[in-house]
């Protein structure tokens, strides 16, 4: 199965810029479906980026983060060719992980 995580990590000198796009419904638990029943909350709670065994960015999310979330950040200390591990866990215990190569 294709990964739910799409990442682009670009090193520019000492600074690596990371863009991540994740496929997830991010249901808030406040929305009703066509039958008028509430769609239960279903959202990513924790998203982690790891470089060289060290967390470089950790996101704690609530249901107010938009569907198919996007996040952008930058960190220092990585170089081209390094690997960046990305993983998420949602409130139902589902998870996904991927590894991206810094270009």
């Amino acid at each position, binding site marked *: 199965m294709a990964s739910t995580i799409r990442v682009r990590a670009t090193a520019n000198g000492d600074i690596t810029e990371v863009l991540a796009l994740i496929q997830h419904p991010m249901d808030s638990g406040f929305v009703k479906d066509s039958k008028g029943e509430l769609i239960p909350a279903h959202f990513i709670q924790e998203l982690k980026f790891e470089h060289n065994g060290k967390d470089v960015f950790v996101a704690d999310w609530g249901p107010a983060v938009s569907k198919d979330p996007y996040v952008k950040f930058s960190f*220092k200390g990585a170089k081209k060719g390094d690997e960046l591990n990305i993983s998420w866990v949602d409130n139902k215990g589902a998870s996904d992980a991927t590894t991206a190569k810094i270009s």
Partner: protein
Amino acid sequence: MTTINGPLATRRLILQGAASVALIGLGNLPFGAQPARAAANDKYPEEAFKQKSEADAIKALYGKTAEPSDKVKLDAPEIAENGGVVPIAVSTTLDKVTSISLFVAENPNALAASYKIPDGTIPSVANRLKMAKTTNVVAIVESDGKLYSATKEVKVTVGGCGG
């Protein structure tokens, strides 16, 4: 009950005034002594995400209050046509940043996202949030154990709790 005549009432007012000044003066002391918490932990801050109001959520997440700072830059649109996808970015020139959190004041639960910023990570983040209606977006930056905030009102044309 006794009726209060002119001079007495004045004296009481002055006393009350003095008392509240004293309280404000003392109020700052305990805050500095409190240990930094929550955001420094690795655990998902479940309680903070359950709080309805922005003030309660900040308290549950950090256990202290924030002061407005022009060193926190909150980038959000004036008008968001679709409340389901509001692009919001935060950056700061403050040093020793350990976390950045975003609150949407009148969402069902105010806390939207909280980011841990380890050493070596630039204190700047961009994401997209849902907004139920026109309200304030508040960015909080935790720097050297203190909280700094920036606030911006975003007008929402179509509410986004519909996702």
